[in-house]
């Protein structure tokens, strides 16, 4: 159901490493809406997000050969490229981006908030993201928010604390516990 099936993306990346332009286009078609949506949420400006997406895909073309299929998932690898480039751009511009309350897609938000876990199963994302959504929904809302703020907006503990108007110690504890719980939950799902 997902167009970002890791197995398929792996073979596309392997073909891109062999300079296969058609595979590169297929990889772009399969992943660009998600990666662009992500860049857009980080940067909040279309033209900046487009620049980052463009640079990221040029980097994917140049570095596909160094992607090791045994290690991180293809989507992880590409997301990390986009995230690093978007952060670099933010730092270069030294700009403060308006942090928008609805970072997450509405359907994702509702699925996370719902007491019934079934909405997560119908979200249009790959199995890894659905597993994460499932575990994320088990966290308390504020813990979720603290982790999401840090991940999407390159915020430090103290910046998250400032943003959420909470004491620094509280935020540190929440982030740490939230991450621990995510790991436990995801490990259990993998084992299942």
């Amino acid at each position: 159901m997902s167009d970002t099936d890791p197995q398929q993306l792996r073979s596309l990346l392997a073909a891109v490493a062999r300079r296969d332009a058609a595979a590169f286009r297929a990889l772009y078609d399969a992943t660009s809406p998600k990666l662009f949506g992500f860049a857009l949420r980080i940067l909040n400006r279309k033209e900046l997000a487009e620049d980052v997406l463009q640079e990221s895909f040029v980097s994917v073309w140049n570095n596909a050969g160094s992607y090791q299929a045994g290690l991180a998932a293809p989507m992880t690898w590409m997301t990390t490229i986009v995230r690093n480039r978007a952060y670099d751009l933010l730092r270069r511009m030294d700009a403060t981006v308006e942090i928008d309350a609805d970072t997450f897609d509405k359907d994702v938000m509702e699925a996370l908030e719902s007491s019934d876990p079934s909405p997560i199963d119908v979200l249009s994302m790959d199995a890894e993201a659905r597993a994460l959504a499932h575990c994320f929904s088990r966290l308390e809302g504020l813990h979720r928010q603290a982790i999401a703020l840090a991940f999407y907006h390159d915020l430090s503990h103290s910046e998250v604390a400032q943003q959420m108007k909470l004491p620094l110690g509280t935020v540190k504890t929440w982030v740490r516990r939230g991450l621990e719980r995510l790991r436990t939950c995801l490990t259990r799902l993998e084992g299942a």
Partner: protein
Amino acid sequence: MNIERNPELLDRLAAEYVLGTLRNGARRRFDTLLARHAAMRRVVEQWQDRLCPLAQFAPAEAPRPQVWDNIARATGIAPQPSGWMSRLRESLSFWRGLGLTSSALAMVLAAVLLTQQAGVQAPPSFVAMLADDKSQPVAVVTGDARRHQLTVKLVAPQTVAADRSLELWAVPKQGNPRSLGLLAADGSITLPLPENATPDTVALLAVTVEPKGGSPKADGPTGPIVFKGAWLRI
């Protein structure tokens, strides 16, 4: 404390490293350790796989089609519609069709250049504004006949794949295009202006994406035209 021997601490730091909340000195120390220990890198990769799907929680949105065009151009995989000569003919009719707009643009450009450079150096004798297929200006080329110099200033920085170069061509009214040299992806560059590259014989300047170091063929480009512009006397 020795992180390598403390799996719980390592796991916590790796998670915060990936999340981004591990900062400053602590992050740099962690980076140093990562470079040395493959086992630590594995823990980080596991956390990347765990947390990166957060990116998919953002609403997906299709980028505009020109983003792909730019990527294709930068990586040198833009489709080549047909042979060089027919592309050249397309280019010429494109510029004729543009008529008034391009001459008006060229005049504005010339006026700007003349004003800017007055008193500093002799005004350029020739000018071209190179635009992409969406007519967006990408580079300004000025030619100084007295100094036998071409100056190419990129007004829109380009992304070029590591194994590609941008090459500038003089497209004569008759015969094969001649290379004028390679361009930088950004900034200005000065190239020699050959005697036979004046607008009297050369109608058009064009830039193609070529393998690194320039076209391997002696008689012309191998890659697609990405920007072009009429070469005008001012």
